C-alpha cells in the first residue's frame, strides 16, 4: 500500500461513522420527501402539500423575524459588552465571568425559568412592573400575539449575546496596544477609537460569529418549543418547529422531510449570500 491509501485506511472508521450519522439521515430525508407513508414514489406531492398549508408561509416569516431580530441585538449587545469588558475597571474578572453565565445555562433550564418569569399571573416581571406602576395591569407576555415574539427574541438574545461578547473580546485583546496609542496621539476620543480601531479590527470575528448565529438561529428549537410550542395561534411557529410538529406530533414524516429539504435549500442560499457579501469585502485586516 502506498502512503496515500494507508492514510485512507486510518480515516476510514471516522468516515464510516460520519456517513452513518450525517450522510445517511440526509439521504434518507431526501428519499422520505418524495415518497408516501407506504414508501411509494409520489414525486413532488409532499412539497406541494406542505407549501399549501397555511402555517408554512407564516412560519417562514416568523423564522425571518426571529432569526433577524435575534442576530441584530445579539451582535450589538455582544459587541458592546465585549468593548466594555475590554476596559480596565475594578472587578472586571468577576463581571466577565457573570456575563458568560447565560450561555452556560442549559437552554431548557433557561427557557423554563424565563417562562415562569414572564407568566401572566405568577411571573416576577408582571409583579415588579405592576408594583412599580410601569404598567397598570398584568400583561400576558406569552399569550398576547403582539408581545410573544419580541419576548422570545429577547430571551434568545439574552442566551447568546455572551457568546458574541467572548468571541469579540478575544478579538479585541489581539489588537496591539500601539494602535490605540497611535490613535490617541492622532487625536481620537473613546468613540473614535471604537469606530476606527476596535470595530474594523474585529470585523472578521463579527462576520464569523454572525454566520454562526444565523446557522444556530435557523436551527433553534429549544427555547421556543419549551416556552410556547409555536403558539399562540402559530405566532411563534418557526419553520424548525413546524417540521418537528409535522414529524412528531402529526407523524407526517414525508411532509416534514419535504419541508426540511426546502428549508435546507433556503438556509444554504442565505448562508452563501452572506459569505459572499461580507466575508470578501476588500480592506480586510490580515
Amino acid at each position, binding site marked *: 500500500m502506498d502512503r496515500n491509501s494507508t492514510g485512507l485506511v486510518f480515516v476510514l472508521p471516522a468516515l464510516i461513522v460520519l456517513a452513518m450519522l450525517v450522510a445517511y439521515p440526509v439521504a434518507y430525508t431526501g428519499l422520505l420527501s418524495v415518497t408516501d407513508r407506504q414508501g411509494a414514489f409520489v414525486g413532488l406531492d409532499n412539497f406541494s402539500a406542505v407549501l399549501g398549508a397555511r402555517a408554512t408561509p407564516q412560519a417562514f416569516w416568523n423564522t425571518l423575524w426571529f432569526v433577524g431580530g435575534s442576530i441584530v441585538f445579539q451582535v450589538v449587545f455582544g459587541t458592546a459588552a465585549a468593548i466594555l469588558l475590554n476596559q480596565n475597571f475594578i472587578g472586571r474578572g468577576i463581571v466577565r465571568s457573570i456575563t458568560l453565565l447565560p450561555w452556560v445555562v442549559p437552554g431548557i433550564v433557561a427557557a423554563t425559568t424565563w417562562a415562569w418569569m414572564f407568566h401572566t399571573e405568577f411571573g416576577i416581571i408582571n409583579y415588579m412592573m405592576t408594583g412599580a406602576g410601569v404598567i397598570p395591569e398584568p400583561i400576558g407576555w406569552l399569550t398576547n400575539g403582539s408581545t410573544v415574539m419580541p419576548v422570545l427574541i429577547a430571551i434568545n438574545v439574552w442566551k447568546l449575546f455572551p457568546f458574541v461578547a467572548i468571541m469579540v473580546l478575544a478579538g479585541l485583546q489581539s489588537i496591539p496596544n500601539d494602535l490605540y496609542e*497611535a490613535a490617541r*496621539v492622532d487625536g481620537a476620543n473613546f468613540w473614535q477609537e471604537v469606530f476606527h480601531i476596535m470595530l474594523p*479590527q474585529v470585523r472578521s470575528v463579527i462576520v464569523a460569529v454572525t454566520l454562526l448565529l444565523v446557522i444556530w438561529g435557523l436551527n433553534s428549537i429549544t427555547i421556543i418549543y419549551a416556552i410556547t410550542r409555536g403558539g399562540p395561534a402559530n405566532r411563534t411557529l418557526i419553520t424548525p418547529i413546524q417540521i418537528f410538529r409535522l414529524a412528531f406530533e402529526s407523524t407526517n414524516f414525508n411532509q416534514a422531510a419535504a419541508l426540511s429539504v426546502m428549508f435546507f435549500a433556503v438556509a444554504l442560499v442565505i448562508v452563501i449570500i452572506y459569505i459572499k457579501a461580507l466575508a470578501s469585502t476588500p480592506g480586510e485586516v490580515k
Partner: protein
Amino acid sequence: MGSVNIAQARKSYGALEVLHGVSVNIANGEFVVLVGPSGCGKSTLLRMIAGLEAISGGEIAIDGKVVNTLAPKERDIAMVFQSYALYPHMTVEANMGFSLRLGGAPKDAIKARVAEAAKMLGLEDYLKRYPRHLSGGQRQRVAMGRAMVRKPKVFLFDEPLSNLDAKLRVQMRSEIKRNHQRLKTTTVYVTHDQIEAMTMADRIVVMNGGVVEQVGSPLELYDRPANLFVAGFIGSPSMNILSGRLENGTFMTADGTAFAVPGMASFGNRDVRLGIRPEHLCLDPNGLRAEIVTVEPTGSETQVMMRLGGHDVVGVFRERVVNAPGEMLPVSIDAERAHIFDPQTGKRLEA
C-alpha cells in the same frame, strides 16, 4: 514648532521608581536623541512627553505650556512607533490623513496635506495601498508621513529603525535627518543604537538607570565623556578602560606596564581609570608590547584585540595587520587623547 522642557521628571510604577528626576531642555527646532541601554527609561520618558504615560513627578512643558495633565491629542505632538502602528484596515492615504480627519479638516485640505507629505517621502504611488502591501521601509515612511501631515510642534520617534535591515536603516537615518533639516520641527528621538545617536543628533542625552548621564553634542560626548558610562557607551568599538595608578605623570597598570600621560601631573599620585579610544592606539616599533588575541580586518582598517597591561584592549589601525594571534604587536598610546576617570565615582577628572 516648539521647545520641550523637562524638569525633574519622575516616573514610578508603584513603589518602583524608574525615572529619578530627569531634566532636559530641548530648544525649538532641535533634533535631540535619547540614547541608553534597554531599561534606562528613555522610552518611558518619550511616552511621558507624548502623554501615553502619566508623569509621577516633575513637569514637562511643550512650547512653554505645562502638559502634565493634558491628553496626547492636546499636546500637539506626533509620534512614530517602533512597530509603526499603522492602521491595518486603512489605505496609506487614510492612515496619513487620519488625524486631520479626526480633527474635522475639509476633505480637499486633507488630500492636499497628504499629497504634500507623500511627495516629500516618495510615497505618491502607494497612497491607495494597504500597509500589508508595503515593505518595512515603506511602512516606516508612511508612519513618518502620518506624523508630518499634522505639522505638530514636536515629533517623537520611538526606536523607529530597529525593525529594518542594516542597509535600510542607514538609508532611513539620512532620510529622517534630511526631513528634519527641511521641516525644522523639534524632534525627540529614542534609540539604543549609539551610532544612530551620533549620526543624527544635534544633541544627545545619554541615559542610564533612570538618570541622565550626560547631555551634549555628539562630538562633545565623544571627545569629553563625563563619566565611565558615557565613555563606554558612545563610540564603536568602545573605549578601552585601563585600571592603574598615576604617579608623577606616568600611568602604570598592576603588571608594571607604564607610559607617560602628559598634562596629568596636577592630579598627583592616585588610582585612576584611564580611557583610550581604539583609534588612539598606533603601531609603533618602539611602543609597548601587546599580545594579539584576534585580528579582524574590515578592509579599510583592522581591528585588533590584544592583551596589554593585564587588560583586553582593542586597537583600530589604518594599517593592515598581518600578525597572527599570539604574536607580540608593538603599539603606542596617544596619551594626550587619554581620558582619566575617578575609579570610585566613575567621573571624569580634568587637569
